[in-house]
Structure formats: structure tokens, C-alpha cells
């Protein structure tokens, strides 16, 4: 007997705001009719924390998983016990995740997939079939973005941070010829960035005696978890974007334009038990024989032949005109789903 059960959401990108009705349908395809003792849907959201690597010690690592923080747990009775006829049956459902009248203390954090922290929302359907049969179930992740009530009040400041990268600003040892020859790279970059906008800025190589090999922008996440009295922080790389390939012309302004990857970024969160922050690093690699000897490893580790500047980056959710036909492409910074390609 083959029975297939599937959940379909009303939006192909599966993005919902907490106050919006989450709508969809349950699709059951069955060769024979099924009797059941009830159809029930569960909507769960939680912050999953895991301690691993980073500043965690041996003992903390040993414990591994920290108790998850629940955000949402709702059960929706779809149907009482009965029968599903053979063939394809579609059962619609609708639920509002957050009832403004309910005193819901937990915040609806936005969906985020990191290394130690992941914030995930799942919808699960269960068709209960008594003790003799295994219940039929299916699970689907849906994506939550902050609703308007939670939005930052402050507007995004258009100001950018100006940075200088020279042999003297480096906190790690660099090649002697770099130290003596010197280099100067300047630029500016936004340190507060809307989730809807690309991270932007510009960079100019003003001088460098050693030829440049590459200039990359690293997008980093900083995940912190409160474990007992200790805060365990780990910084890891989300994405690298090269903006210069080779020894570029001096004094030519290069644009910094980094499209923020979705699901892997979220608005900066500073909650009690955990926090999610972001950083942006400008890394200049110089041409050097040494670099060839080292296999490509962790790109954020400072090396003798690299110079870098790391800046904090605050990501914020600004309002999006979801239903209007806005001209700006930034209104559509969603749907990081392969199915949508």
C-alpha cells in the first residue's frame, strides 16, 4: 500500500511573517481509503544551540547540545477521526502563528542556519491511525521573518565607515618585505546593512610595493551562547566575495558589492541566552611564494602574506513592500530555495 502525504504552502518561497496567516494544504495520495483517528498539525519553532569548537572548552564540547529555546508550539486539530477516500485528497489549513492578544513572551526570531545556532520553524502533519498502524506524517520547514512590530525604529544610517589598511594596522605578523615596502589600501564600507540591500562600499589600492594577488570580502557570523557563567563565541565564514583579481591598477576605485546570502544571515540578534552577530573582513592577499606552499585552508586565519581589516556589521530588517510592485530589486531578497532557481 503506497500512501504519500505532502504539505504545500501558499507561498512558493515559504516566507511568512508571524502575524500573517500561514496557509496551505495537505495533499494525501493513496491507493486505498485510510481510516484514521484524527488529523493533527503541529507548528514548532525553536532556537537550537550547540557548542562546538570556538572558545568552548573540552568539557563544554563534551556536553555538546544545550537545551533548545522554544519559540512556538501550536497544535491544530484538522479533522476528527474518520476516513480518507482513495485517490488524491487535499485538505486546506490556516493558522496565525502569533495571536497579538495572546501574551506571547518569546520573540519570533527570524529563521537562521549557522554552525552553532540554528533557528528553525517546522510544520508537521500527523494522521493518527491507532496502535496497529504507524501514523502517517510529513514535515516542512517554513521561513519566518520579523513582522513590522519588531522592526528597528531607527532608519538605516547611510553613513559608511572609512577604513585604512597599511602595514602598520596589521595585528598579525606579516612578511618583512611587506613591512618594509609598505602598502596602503583605503575604502569605505557600510557597517549597518539592511537585509534587503547588498553590502556596499568601495575600495582603492593606493600603493603597494608587492603585487596584489586578490582582494576578498569575507562575511563572518559571530555566534555566542551563554553556557552557565560562560559565553562561548565562535566566528565562522559565511561567504567570500572576490572584488579584485590580480594586481589591480593603483588609485582606481573598485566597488564593494556583496549580495547577502539568505537563510545564512538574519538580523543581528542579541538575546539573553544567545546572540548572533556579523562581521565583514576585507582581506588583501599579496603575491608570495609562501602562499603556494600552503594549501588553501581557513581563509580567515591571518597569514604572513595577507593584510586585513575586520569590521562589525549590523544586519537589520527594514520593511519590505511585499505586495506592492516596487521598482527596487531589493524588495525581493528572499527565497533562497533551490526549487526557486
Amino acid at each position, binding site marked *: 500500500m503506497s500512501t504519500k502525504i505532502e504539505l504545500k504552502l501558499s507561498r*512558493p*518561497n515559504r516566507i511568512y511573517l508571524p502575524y500573517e496567516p500561514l496557509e496551505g494544504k495537505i495533499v494525501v495520495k493513496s491507493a486505498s481509503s485510510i481510516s484514521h483517528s484524527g488529523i493533527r498539525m503541529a507548528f514548532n519553532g525553536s532556537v537550537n544551540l550547540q557548542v562546538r569548537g570556538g572558545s568552548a572548552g573540552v568539557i563544554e564540547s563534551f556536553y555538546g547540545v544545550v537545551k533548545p529555546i522554544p519559540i512556538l508550539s501550536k497544535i491544530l486539530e484538522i479533522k476528527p477521526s474518520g476516513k480518507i477516500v482513495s485517490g488524491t485528497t487535499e485538505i486546506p489549513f490556516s493558522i496565525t502563528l502569533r495571536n497579538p492578544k495572546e501574551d506571547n513572551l518569546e520573540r519570533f526570531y527570524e529563521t537562521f542556519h549557522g554552525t552553532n545556532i540554528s533557528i528553525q520553524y517546522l510544520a508537521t502533519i500527523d494522521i493518527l491511525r491507532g496502535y496497529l498502524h504507524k501514523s502517517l506524517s510529513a514535515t516542512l520547514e517554513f521561513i519566518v521573518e520579523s513582522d513590522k512590530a519588531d522592526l528597528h525604529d531607527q532608519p538605516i544610517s547611510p553613513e559608511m565607515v572609512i577604513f585604512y589598511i597599511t602595514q602598520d594596522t596589521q595585528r598579525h605578523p606579516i612578511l618583512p618585505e611587506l613591512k618594509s615596502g609598505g602598502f596602503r589600501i583605503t575604502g569605505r564600507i557600510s557597517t549597518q546593512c539592511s537585509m534587503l540591500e*547588498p553590502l556596499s562600499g568601495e575600495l582603492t589600492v593606493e600603493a603597494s610595493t608587492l603585487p*596584489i594577488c586578490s*582582494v*576578498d570580502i569575507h562575511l563572518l557570523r559571530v555566534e555566542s551562547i551563554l553556557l552557565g557563567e560562560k559565553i562561548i563565541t565562535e566566528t565562522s565564514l559565511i*561567504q*567570500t*566575495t*572576490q*572584488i*579584485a*583579481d*590580480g*594586481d*589591480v*591598477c593603483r588609485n*582606481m*576605485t*573598485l*566597488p564593494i*558589492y*556583496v*549580495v547577502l*546570502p*539568505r*537563510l*545564512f544571515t538574519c538580523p543581528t540578534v542579541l538575546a539573553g541566552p544567545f546572540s548572533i552577530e556579523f562581521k565583514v573582513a576585507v582581506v588583501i592577499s599579496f603575491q608570495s611564494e609562501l602562499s*603556494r606552499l600552503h594549501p*588553501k585552508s581557513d581563509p580567515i586565519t591571518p597569514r604572513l602574506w595577507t593584510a586585513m581589516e575586520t569590521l562589525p556589521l549590523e544586519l537589520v530588517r527594514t520593511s519590505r513592500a*511585499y*505586495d506592492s*510592485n516596487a*521598482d*527596487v*530589486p531589493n524588495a*525581493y*531578497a*528572499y*527565497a*533562497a*530555495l*533551490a526549487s*526557486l*532557481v
Partner: protein
Amino acid sequence: MEFRARNYIAEEQSHALPRSRAAIHPLSSPSPPTHLRQVDDNVENRNNEEFFDPLRAPDSNAPVKIVDGRDSESSSYGNDDSAQVQMKEWTSFKRFLMQRFPVSKMISISSMSNMIVRGGKAYEKYSTSMHMEELDDPQKSSEEGAKVITWREYVSRLHELKEEINGAWHNEDRVKSLKLSIKVARLLMDTSVSNFYPTLFVLTTDVLDMVGNVVWERIRQKAEFAEDGTKFCSLPENFRASDVCIDAKETCYNWFCKVGSIRELLPRIYLELAILPCWRFLTEQPAESLQRLVMMTRGLADPLASAYCRLYIAHRAQKLPFYDTGYLITCVNDIKLIFTQISSAKETAHGCLADSKSSLVSLMEPAIEFIMKCIFNDASLMRVGKVLVELGIGRSQEELFGGSSCVSIVLHHLLKELPTDVVSSHAVDILHLIKCSNDYSYDQCLNYRLLGLRLCEQISQIGSVDDIVNEVILVVSQCGLDEYLKVIDAYLDIVLQNQMDGHLKTILEGISELACDQVIAEDELAGLQSILVKVLSHFEDLEDVFSLNHFLQILDLMHGSSRSIVNMHILDMATRNGYVRDPTSIQLIFEISQELHNDIDIANKKNDDNQQQARLISHFVRMVDHGTEYEQHLAFLVECRGAFSSIIELKEILVHSSNFLATKALKDGKKHLSFVKSCMAFSEVTIPSISGHIKQLHLYLETAEVALLGGLVSHSDGLIDSALDCLQSFDRMEGSRAAVDSDGILSSIRKLCSLLIMVPDNPEVGILHIPKSILSIIHSQSWSPRMKTRIFCAIVSLSATLSQGRLPYHAFHPEVMGNDLLFFGNSSYVHELISLAASVLENLVDVIEREPSQAARGNMSLEACNCIVSSFKINEHVLLVCSKLIEIAKLCLSAKDKYLISTISFLDKNLPAATAASSITV
């Protein structure tokens, strides 16, 4: 048997059509009302007309329909036109790129392109993970140095990849096709084999264009069709972003996110360019991202990679419905900066880099060329000013060329694309600009040359011609010969058309000074050739050219094919205005012809060029006219025969000329008889060296005619004998071609027969010696029955004519006695004629019966019958032959055949009354 007596004068009068004076020429265009009236008449009468005149066919409806069809087609194309033109331009540009930089057989591939070498195995495994990070897994693990594969393998691998991308796309595995496309784009990061780069660019952008198209189609599909395939909206050609549904927009933006997450700069730019048109689904100003992409391209440090990336920008931007060229100007300015950087690097590095630099420049040139073309596509004058200011060349709209210098290769392509008006009105400024833009990237003198060529497009519009020419002459005065020629060649038309004779003199003097004591190279010869030809075609009269100082001197410096070409121009010029009469010119041109003749490669006689030369020389010989200096002209002909021995057609012309000369002298009076004899001798000696017996035959007959005109009977006898010899040897020599030329021979023999009427018979060799020889030749040859029949008829007619008391025509010369006077009333002469004709009649029927084709046989017998009836008085013997012939005709042709009917009635008319009744009803 007896010949019919003829009175030719009376016959001519009776057969002549009555003539009446016509008021209008029948072919002159009639006035409109008459014309209409005529058409009407035609329409009415058409049905009654027996034959159909295609020119009057009034099928006027058909062409109108065709025109309508075309109209509707062209209007439906309207919108796509420019897109199609751009497509075609791009295709031809790609072909040009591949041809300009051909690829050597083997390419060494650096590690970057390992995917090509390893084939499909490297990327069989794809996780379905959503993130792109694993795409960026740089395949640098195996850096064992360069690998070598053939370029054919490389290309076929790329084609496979294209197929794979296509296949994955159609299997709904779009992530895979995106990943493969990124790998393809990544190939362009490898510039190590620089000569292969243009080809690589063409191949990879081909794939990327395809990817761009399928993405575009998919999003468009999403915007027009619901998931279940129903169409819910139809996007117009010029849709706006607001017409596009959210769903399609999300998919589209997702593509830009995917592309934006590619780690490496170059593939990221290329992929975004591939899907650039898709910005139209998202924003009303899709061109805005172009400026960013141009800026991002600055991050590509490799000059070659960045130049071609900008080329791709220019290409993809054309897919947008509307864009400003400002971003292209930024591209050009950035390229300029790269050139400046390269040139400053040259100063520090050692000299051997210069070579690789010039090859780098030439590799980058197509990019500049294409971008410049895009900038000036339908540029208005206003825009041109803006462009020039933005390029840093102009200071303001008023001062278009007041700025600083420019990288010379950029200047070159700018100059190529500038509107003609701008070039001609700012020529002096541009000259100064070229003067201060002198760097390694392009040969300065080629820019001077280009300016000249551009100016020549509209010579009448040039403002300050004197300044320009003075300036240019000043510039070239410091050049070597090659540069001098290249530059001057471009400005020569300006000098000539403005009648700047002083400058022309200076130029020629300059050339001869530079060229006089050196061996002239190929390039320089080409330059000299172009200049001399321009000078030649400017002047009307050859003598004016020859009188130019240094012209002949320069011509003498030239050699080889260039010289031949100039010589041919001189020859052509000499003969195109009619006769050449001036003795010094004749001498000069004769020498030139001799040179030309010496250059004709004997081995390549069939070569078109050589034929052209031969034609020109022959034409010249024909056009030479010494007036009344006949002796001198003949001497010239003799000289020509010696000088141009390899030109066969010329010998024919020599014979014609000498015959013409003899005729002219004869008309002049009697005193030139000995001269005419020398002409005859000349012709007689020349003819045998001409190959082809038919040609010889014609020429012999022509000469015999002239000899007869001059009263030189013995000469003409000799010539006719030679003609007969030709005829005799004809079959042996050219047997295989006999069939083809039979009409020619036939008409020659007929011509000979009519000539014989004038030629007095020579009793010493026997009366009717010549017709008899003809007959014996006929018998010995295996000619077709058709041809033999006709020759027989000709001889029958000849005999009948000779028997008349008064011949239809006589030789012009008073001293030549006609046969009618020589043999009048001589019964043995008439008897000879009768017996000749009778012997022909005997064979006639036999020959006709041998003709295989029925229709031809019928017609031949009718022809023969007509000939016999008009030649003889009908007696029983003749009638017997005639009725045999009619019999044959009746068997072969239908009873209604008009020729048959009219022949029978002709025969009836001529029957003696007694026999009329019985014979024909048989």
C-alpha cells in the same frame, strides 16, 4: 540541262517590299493618350491574334500582389530589425575574432581549466545542498603545471559542456546547469595562452549567451503562465517591471542572488552579464546595474581578461531596450588607463617585453573596436560632443578636440567611428591630436592615414584644405618612404580634387627623393601603385600625366606586379578616348606595352590578369592611328608582331589592321599599290602563325577580298589557295571540334563561293579549279549530311550565277575583269559549269538520305529543291531530282508544313506548261 537565265536587277526590284514613308519611329515612345488607346486596341484584338507577344502580356495583377506581400512582411519585422542587425553584427564579429587570432594546434592548459582536461568525471557528484559554497571548491589541488591538449579537443569538450548544460536544464536540474555555466565562465580566468583567448572568449560567451536566453525564457514563462500551464497574462515586447507578477520576480531575484554568491570576480561578472536582460523583470531601470558591472570589471587586473570582459559588457548591454553609452565611455577610459600602465611598465622593464606588449595590444584591439562601434551607433552630433568630452579628448561642446593627448589605439578606433561631418569640420584639430598622441600602442602614421581616408569620404565638406595639406606634408617630410607613402596616399585625393598642383609636385618630388636610391619593398610598391593610379585616374589626358615632373621617374623605380598594374592603367587610359595619334605617346605606350608583355607569365596564360593585359595591349594596337603615314603604321604593326609574339589575339588584330590599312590606302588613290602589296605580304606571312584553322580561313578570305579590291588577282588566287589548304587540313587537325564549328566553316565556304563570283577564273590552272577543289574537299571530309547538302547547294547556285550573261556584282577594281566578260558566250565554259552542277546533283539526293534526323532531312530536301528550281530550267532530269526531293520531304514532314506547301507551289509555278499536269500529283 540548262541554267535558268536571271535578271538580277529586275528581280531585286520585283522582290523589294513597297516602301512608304513613316511619320513616327515605331520604337520611339508614343504620347500618353495614344499609348492608352493602343493598349485598349491590343486588349480588344488579343483574342484574334495568332501569336502571343509576351511583352504585351497584361498580367498586371501578379506583380502588385507580390509587392503587397513584401509590404506586410517588412512591417511585421519592424521591431526586431535592430535586434537582428545586432545579432548579425555579433556573429560576424565573433567570426572575425576567430580568424584574426588563429589557434595553434596545441594549447597548454593551466590548472585553472582542469575541468576541460579531466572531462566529465570531475563534476558528476552534486549535492543537492542549496548553498553555492561547494561551487567555489577551487580545483587547484593538482597544480602539476600546464597540460597540453589539442585545441580541437578543447572545443569539442566545450561543446559537450554546452550540451550538458542544456540537458541538465531540460531535466529540470537547473542548479546543475548553473554550476556548469560557472565552470565555463571560470575558463576565461586563464589568460596564459593569450593567442587562444579570443577563441576561448567566443566559445564560452556562446555558452553563456545560451544560458542567459534560457533563464530569460523561464522567467518570462513564469510571468505569463501559471503553474498548471494556463496563460494568465501576456507580456508586451516593451513590458515594464510592474507588469511582472511577484512569483516571477522572486525567481528572477533568486537567480541574481545565486550569481552574486559566486566567489571569484570574473565568473560572477560574466554570469550576471549573461542574465543581465532579466533585470527588466525586476526594475524599470535595468541599465543601472551596467555601471556597477563596469566598475566591478576594474577589479580584473589582467589586461586581456578585463578588455574582453568589457567587450562582453558592450555585447550584453545591447540586449537591453534602452541604455546610456556613459558606461561604455567608462570602459574605454579604463582601458586607456591600462594602456598607460602597460606603457609605463615598458620603461622600467627591459626591451624584449616590447614584442609581447604589441601582441597584447593587438589582442585587446577588437574589444576597443567593438566598444567604440557601440558608442557611436547612431550618435547625434550633440552626443558626439558629450562623448568626446567624457573621453577626455574635448574640453567642451565648442572645443571638441582641445583636450590632452589620447592613447593612439583608442584614438584610431575613435577616428574610425566619428561621424564624417565631425571629422571634416575638425580636421586640423584632429591632426594636432594625432600629433601629440604618439605611443607604442598604435603606429602614428596609420592614424594620419586614417584621418586622410575619413576626410576623403566627403572632400567637398572639408573646411581648411590648405592648412591640412600643409600640415600633412610637414609631417611626412620627416618620415621614411613607407610611412610617407601610407600617409600621402590617403590625402592624395584631397590634393587632386582641390587642384593643388604645387602640392602634387612637392609630393612627387618627395617620393622620388626618398625612393631613388633604395630597393623598394612590397609594401612600398603597393603604396606607389595606389598613388600613381590615383594620379592617373584624376587626369583626363595621358599627356598631362606624362608631363608631370618625376612621374615617369617614379614609374621607372617600380617593378613587378605593381608596375604592371600601373602600366595597365596607363594603357587603359591611353586607349579609352579613341585613337592614339601622337607619335611620342605611341612610342611611350609601346614601350610600356612591351614591359607589360614581358611580365606576362607564359606558364599562366590562362590567368585572368594576363588576359586583361593581352586585351589592353591588343586594344592599344587597334587604336593606334598614324593618319596618312601608312608606311609608318605598317612598320609599327611589324614591330608589334615581333614584340608581342605571345599574344594570339593580337595577331588577328594585326591582320585586320593591315587589311584595314591597305583598304584605306586604296581609297586614297592608285599611288599606293606597292604599299598595298606589302600589306598583303604582311598579312600573308602573319596568318599562318595564328592557331585555329577557322580563324585562318576567315583571315585568308578577308585578305583575298582586300587583294581583289586592289586588283591583285594573283595575290587573291594565292590567298584563296591557302584558304583551301586550311580547309583541307581542317579535319585532320581539329577533327574532334569539327561538329562545334561546323556552322562557322559552312558560312566561310558560302562566303568563299560568293567571293568566287568576282574572282576571274584562271585558265592556266583550269577553269572552275576552285569549286572543284571545294567539291573534292567535301568528298574527302566526314562532315555531316546537313553541312554537305548546304555546300552542294552553294556550289549549284554559284555555277548557275556564273553562267549568267551579267553577274550580280563585280570586283571594285576596274582592272579586274569579271568572268562574264572573260567567258561571255564561251560554250565550253558553260558546259563546264553544267557538268559541275550535274555532278553535284548526282550526289545530292544520296547525301540527304543519309541525314538521321527526320525533320532535318525534310527541310534539307526542300532547301535543295528550292535551290535547284531557282537555278535550272526544269526538264525531265531536273524534275526527277525535284520530285525525289519532294517525296523525301513528304515522308518526313506533315502535309500541312508551310515550307513544303510553298516549295511545291514554287515548283509548280516553274514547271514548263507541258509537264505541269502529271508530275506533282504523284
